[in-house]
């Protein structure tokens, strides 16, 4: 039986964007994700301007904490770009080292953010109520939705980088972190349930790693870097709009 054979160049037109499809896919995802965050940021800013009695619960300690978190994310972007450079020169040990450094900064950011949430909830702030201004109940809802969505993105980013850096070796580490986090957080804390994001991440990572095992190359590192820098970029808007606009020094 005759088989139909095509030369690849005859079948596929060259990419309009002049680059590989994985990167175009990630850029398109980031463009759509930026609209998600854009809508949340606009909703927050809209409420902020429309309510002169907007609560200002962020004192010096909160601002200092959020500034350290920002420095962590900015530093993680630097280590990420160094990982991409190392991957481009096929330096696997340094690619892994810089990716692990990026994960460290990302984890530090998440832990500091969780501490900030715990402090606010300890003061009585919930999605529908806040102890500072009863006439502005939307403060908690917009704050937790926006920062929670970002925290989820950072967590997914750390898992993504862990898969790229360590592949299957990352799975027991992730499961260990989930178990320790679950056992250490108090049963009444929102993070006692939120930590299950790590378990879901471990299951999804295992499916990807076992169904399509591969040695991740410089393109994969560059694409994961695009995602990570985007997470950093979004925080550049959340930090001033949420924290610095609600400061009481």
């Amino acid at each position: 039986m005759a088989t139909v054979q095509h030369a690849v160049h005859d079948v596929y037109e060259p990419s309009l964007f002049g680059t590989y499809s994985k990167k175009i896919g990630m850029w398109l995802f980031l463009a759509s994700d930026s609209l998600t965050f854009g809508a949340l940021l606009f909703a927050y800013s809209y409420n902020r301007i429309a309510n002169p009695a907007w609560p200002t619960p962020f004192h010096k300690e909160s601002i200092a904490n959020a500034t350290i978190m920002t420095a962590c994310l900015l530093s993680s972007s630097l280590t990420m770009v160094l990982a991409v450079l190392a991957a481009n020169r096929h330096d696997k040990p340094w690619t892994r080292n810089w990716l692990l450094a990026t994960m460290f900064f990302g984890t530090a950011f998440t832990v500091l953010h969780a501490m900030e949430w715990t402090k606010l909830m300890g003061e009585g702030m919930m999605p529908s109520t806040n102890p500072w201004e009863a006439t502005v109940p939307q403060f908690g809802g917009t704050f937790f939705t926006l920062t929670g969505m970002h925290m989820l993105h950072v967590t997914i980013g750390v898992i993504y980088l862990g898969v790229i850096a360590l592949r299957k070796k990352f799975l027991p580490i992730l499961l260990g972190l989930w178990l320790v986090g679950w056992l250490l957080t108090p049963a009444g804390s929102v993070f006692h349930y939120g930590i299950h994001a790590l378990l879901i991440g471990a299951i999804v990572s295992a499916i990807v790693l076992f169904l399509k095992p591969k040695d991740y190359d410089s393109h994969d590192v560059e694409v994961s870097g695009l995602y990570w820098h985007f997470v950093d970029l979004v925080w550049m808007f959340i930090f001033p709009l949420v924290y610095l606009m609600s400061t009481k020094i």
Partner: protein
Amino acid sequence: MHDVTAAHGEHKGVYFWVWGGLLFLTAVEVVLAYKQILQPVQMLEVLLVLSVIKAALIVLYFMHLKSEIRTMRWLLTISVTACFALMWIFFFPDANRILHLGVK
């Protein structure tokens, strides 16, 4: 195929400068918040301008959009900017209306 990796492979020092610039702009924002010399709407405008500069630095240098081909650069920039402009046009005048006229 346009090889962006080759285009940005030799400028390690630039990334440290960009990182330093981002930290500096963050420090400016924090100082503005501590001083509290601006009204909320003015403060929002200044912070948004600084945030857009920081975002541009991240996208152009860390995400290497500067090294991509012109089609990709413009298509991404124009589409995302147009969407944000639409959100801006519809959201903020209404928020200001509530602020100045009260909820009707």
